């Protein structure tokens, strides 16, 4: 055998294609990076990438193909919680481990599927990380509104952040939701305008974050805007909102300050690869997920000593990976005996004002 295959299923077409493509590019960079440094077990890594078309049925089909036709021993994917949950029965059926790089639903690791290892944080973890930074804000956060996309991620994040804020004695104001494809948020923002809160926590994808921040500026929303989930409203870099209007973003990777990463050399390797491929700068805030996930898988294969599914799974429990975000190591979650793996990443706060970014 010349190469070791890793299956990747990501949304490359359809509504969430942008993020899926970022992650896939991150994965490609990782594979190249490893191969340039001698590969794993003396063999080169080969990514087999399939499009899950932003659709759970296609996610299942793509995984069937990767496992049955390409015979990949390990998988990475599938971006959203729905797609991930849809393919999870297949993992048990065929006994193939999956490293989940993005999905945030708590169900993924609590469903009792021992083939699942998640590198991305749950919303609860993100909220806890944010809790540590909360006192750094001035003026202080006293009352918080929410604007969330109404999927598992947005609603889950709102719920976890509320829990955390309440524990800190902070008042919860109004909560508004939006469908992922909504472009005009004026009704939601108008409803939030008069709540008297000082902070608005927004959870959604890049497009909607951009629209929300811009339209909030247009409607002169008084709240300070904080976004969660690691997405960054990249279009605001080139076309900033109204002057003086600032927003803050919880990120897991901040390419504006790679030196602040726990392993700057790894972060730099990732960023170099990104640059070499001529990709959008801000996309690195999402792309690193694919990079770290592949590094993790490669490390597991090395520890396992062979490209065998069960061995890789056992090895995943032992890995200690230096990733772009920081250290990746898995702890157990879910019902005893059938635990899934969950890593705990680092969080950065980044401020965007007049098209300029500063890392806090």
């Amino acid at each position: 055998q010349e190469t070791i295959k890793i299956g990747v299923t990501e949304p490359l077409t359809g509504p969430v294609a942008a993020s899926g493509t970022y992650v896939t590019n991150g994965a490609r960079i990782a594979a190249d990076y490893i191969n340039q440094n001698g590969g794993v077990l003396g063999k080169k890594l080969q990514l087999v990438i399939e499009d899950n078309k932003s659709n759970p049925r296609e996610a299942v089909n793509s995984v069937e193909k990767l496992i049955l036709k390409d015979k990949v021993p390990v998988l990475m994917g599938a971006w959203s919680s729905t797609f991930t949950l849809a393919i999870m029965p297949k993992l048990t059926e065929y006994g193939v481990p999956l490293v989940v790089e993005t999905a945030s639903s708590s169900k993924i690791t609590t469903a009792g599927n021992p083939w699942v290892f998640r590198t991305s944080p749950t919303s609860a973890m993100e909220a806890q990380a944010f809790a540590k930074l909360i006192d750094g804000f001035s003026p202080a956060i006293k009352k918080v509104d929410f604007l969330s996309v109404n999927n598992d991620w947005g609603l889950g994040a709102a719920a976890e952040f509320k829990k955390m804020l309440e524990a800190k004695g902070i008042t919860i104001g109004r909560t508004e939701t939006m469908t992922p494809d909504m472009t005009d948020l004026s009704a939601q923002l108008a409803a939030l305008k008069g709540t008297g809160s000082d902070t608005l926590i927004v959870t959604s994808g890049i497009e909607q974050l951009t629209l929300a921040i811009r339209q909030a500026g247009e409607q002169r929303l008084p709240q300070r805007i904080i976004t969660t989930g690691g997405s960054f409203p990249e279009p605001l870099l080139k076309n900033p909102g109204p002057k003086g209007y600032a927003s803050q973003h919880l990120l897991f990777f901040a390419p504006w300050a790679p030196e602040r990463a726990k392993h700057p050399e790894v972060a730099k390797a990732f960023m170099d690869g990104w640059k070499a491929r001529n990709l959008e700068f801000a996309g690195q805030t999402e792309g690193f997920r694919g990079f770290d996930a592949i590094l993790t898988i490669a490390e597991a294969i090395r520890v396992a000593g062979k490209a065998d599914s069960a061995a890789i799974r056992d090895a995943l429990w032992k890995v200690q990976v230096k990733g772009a975000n920081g250290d990746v190591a898995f702890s157990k979650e879910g019902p005893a005996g059938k635990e899934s793996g969950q890593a705990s990443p680092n969080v950065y706060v980044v401020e965007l004002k007049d098209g300029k970014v500063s890392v806090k």
Partner: protein
Amino acid sequence: MTFLVCVLGLAILPLVWPDPYMLSVVASAGIFIIAAISLNLLLGFTGQLSLGHVAFFGLGAYTTSLLSLGFDVTLWGMSEPLVVDPKPVWLSFVCGIVFAAVAGWLLGKLAFRVRGAYFVIVTISFAQVMRMVALNWVDLTEGPMALNGIPALTLWVPGEGVIDLVTKASTYWLVLAVGVLSYLLVAAIVHSRVGRAMIALRENEVLARSVGIRVTHYLGIATIFAAGIAGAAGGLYAHTVRIIDPDVFMFMFTIMMVIMVIVGGKGTLAGPVVGGLLFGLLPEVLRGVVSPEIQWMIYGVLMIAVLVFMPKGVVPSAGNLLRRYSARAGKTPAPLARRKTA
């Protein structure tokens, strides 16, 4: 006759070519072919273009999933939550069909006054509202958090007891069985007085009423059966994918069904099956050949090409060709295309 041969051929496929990937792909397409067969009853025979067909698919899926998993929900005006224990899968599956059929009947009632483009928008709206409900009634449906751990359908096998239908071949046969049943059901309806009444509605509603055909009644029957079968397809989807979320109400799913029906040839019995096999399997054929965007573009181009060169769909055009060929060969005309429009 041809039909029996086809069914037998499909039935022994897993024995002669037990490639699990192929089987899973065909089964997955099969689920949508079943939905397309049901859509054809509405679109092809009553002439009502429903772009909300996925609503019934989703309702079937949610009903059977919720019943087989059990749920508790506080209804408006109730002090005690309503607790429903998990039910046997097959019972849930049947309930899913019934519930979808009831919803079909309801939509039939609701939409009985509108036709054409207006019917289209009513059905789209209905599906959208269903999706919003699934998304926002978190107490019941878990909303976007998805229902997972849905049990598989079971079968009692002599000697082995009750087994879960999870293997590729068993899923395949399960889908095939439901598919054949749906096909026969639609065929029986269409080739009857009831079917003629439906076609009359498609052709000229005013005239149909004047000869005593209660069009709303037959439109109702058509929607009930179409919705019920779509509900069965949804149930199969839920019990094979084993997780559902409001995405089962995706507009794209309706589009997929419509593609299968029209490309195959609406108003013909074999149309949705042929169209479904072609365009259900096409994505898998294209997978990995070129980049994903190009795969889609090829898909679109082929779709247009079929309709440009075979304006009525594959089955009627093939039927015409066959007839012309046999006419030239001096044989009796093949009854293929005829039978379909009867």
